[in-house]
């Protein structure tokens, strides 16, 4: 009891030396903090200005947005009403296009998971012959920038008769997403203990049973990360969507946004509003699954 009082009293009556030492320490800490802020504030501004500008346009009436105002003087949700009500000829298929984006992203996520998980299981756990070659092929495909595959893919989809169908974009996105997916899932599979497989085999498990009852349950975190990766990749894709789809009712949202650019009298505030609506789901998905994504991130590298 007495020691506690002594301790609590001590800082209240420091000697002059202690006080000046505390002051220099405080000054030093304040200096470090100031230096950190000197980096942190420009980083914050640099990061947020384009996004702030996007939001500012979306919640401002047309005249305000075009007058170069920095703050929303008359914030309104009118633009959202117009977009959701499809009340502009640029937006006459907004919901159809939103649905196209969602469907294609979802299908890409699921198909990539099916293709990549079974391949990773075959290579890592069943040690299929030629697995190493397949991994190298996948890695090679992953490194070739997708933009260079776009033109040949466009011609290929034409010769398969898939052009202007959702399947063209889904299959193209699965092709682009699966190499990284296989790579990450294979690395995650390699970390699972062999003893589990051995125990299951002793109990007479066949490869499909091993896959279903041992492998899949253990791989859930990696599967979530890869599913989300493929989903976001497809939702965000512009180039392939714009090459492979062309009818107004077939295209995805980014293509619709790009087509605003073609006209001189584009309604900017509506373009920005649609852009904001389009950008929100992936940002939300990213932050919800951040926990899983960071593991996947450091395991390899997601395409930037």
């Amino acid at each position: 009891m007495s020691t506690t009082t002594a301790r609590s009293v001590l800082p209240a009556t420091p000697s002059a030396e202690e006080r000046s030492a505390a002051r220099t320490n405080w000054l030093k800490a304040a200096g470090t903090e100031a230096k950190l802020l000197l980096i942190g504030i420009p980083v914050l501004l640099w990061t947020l200005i384009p996004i702030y500008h996007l939001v500012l346009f979306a919640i401002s009436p047309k005249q305000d947005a075009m007058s170069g105002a920095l703050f929303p003087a008359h914030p309104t949700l009118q633009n959202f009403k117009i977009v959701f009500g499809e009340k502009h000829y640029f937006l006459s298929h907004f919901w159809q296009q939103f649905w196209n984006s969602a469907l294609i992203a979802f299908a890409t996520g699921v198909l990539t998971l099916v293709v990549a998980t079974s391949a990773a299981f075959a290579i890592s756990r069943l040690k299929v012959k030629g697995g190493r070659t397949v991994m190298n092929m996948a890695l090679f495909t992953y490194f070739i920038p997708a933009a260079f595959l776009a033109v040949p893919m466009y011609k290929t989809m034409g010769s398969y008769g898939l052009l202007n169908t959702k399947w063209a974009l889904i299959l193209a996105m699965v092709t682009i997403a699966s190499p990284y997916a296989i790579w990450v899932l294979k690395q995650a599979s390699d970390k699972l203990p062999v003893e589990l497989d051995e125990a299951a085999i002793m109990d007479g498990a066949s490869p499909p049973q091993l896959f279903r009852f041992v492998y899949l349950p253990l791989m859930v975190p990696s599967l979530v990360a890869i599913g989300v990766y493929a989903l976001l990749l497809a939702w965000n894709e512009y180039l392939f969507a714009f090459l492979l789809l062309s009818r107004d009712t077939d295209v995805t949202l980014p293509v619709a946004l790009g087509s605003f650019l073609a006209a001189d009298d584009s309604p900017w505030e509506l373009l920005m509003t649609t852009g904001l609506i389009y950008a929100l789901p992936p940002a939300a998905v990213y932050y919800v699954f951040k926990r899983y994504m960071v593991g996947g991130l450091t395991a390899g590298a997601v395409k930037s």
Partner: protein
Amino acid sequence: MSATVAEAAPAAAAQPFRLSSWQAWGLILIAPYLLVFLFFVIYPIGYGLWLARSPASYAHLAADPIFARAVVNTLIFLIVGINIKMAIALLLSGFFTNERRWIRWLSVLFILPWAVPSIPTILSVRFMLNPEWGVVNQLIFRFTAEDGPNWLNDPTLALSLAIAVHIWKSLPFWTLILLAGRLAISADLYEAASVDGATRWQKFLHVTWPSMRTLYVTCTILSMIWTLGDFNSVYLLTGGGPADLTHVLATLGIRYLRLDQVDHSMAAVVCAMPFVLPLVYVLMKRLSK
């Protein structure tokens, strides 16, 4: 002893059968990817090379001043843009190792450019830079009473801005990767350096950099490869303009395609390969080490 032998014998007999059944399942499970690879990687590449077979396409490209300009732009993008980006990412990764609550919040916001799709944000930048209505020139006019530059109508400015947009978009990603690299360095090394009286710069030079060098170089190569295929930053900001002076190899192929010159388009992609393939080769060598 005899029990072991008795057990081993049936196992050995069962082995070939079990192995082959496992191999069969392996082949079945790997087949979907092989089909995807065959139909959507091998076939398109073969088809593309076949389209680009005529020497006349390359003669046409060589004679096209836009092609020469695109090659130069691509090199500037890679050599200047990527090195600036990676240097900033290296510095910022050091900044984010500071443990503060506000820095943790900042890092959550900092990832936004990478987490949101590029189209809306690039278009937002494009509108900010509009010479008449854009907020940048309106501010310049308000403060100086003079008209700002026509940002995207000057090839040098436009290309620099495309590089800036690229950096804006991908800086968070590389900073995160390098941050992971920094956090993997043992704190003991820094403590030992402090005991020896090392300055911050000496710590960076003798502790951080030697541990980070391999990661940094790998990231730089990877970023160069991906930047070669960065279509959005240029296409959505400048559209290759003014007068097709800001094209890079990734957008040039699409330009020819839109002009219905598929053979030139493929030839342009083939011309990008001398840039891509050596980098991919070096990277795969580094990663398989």
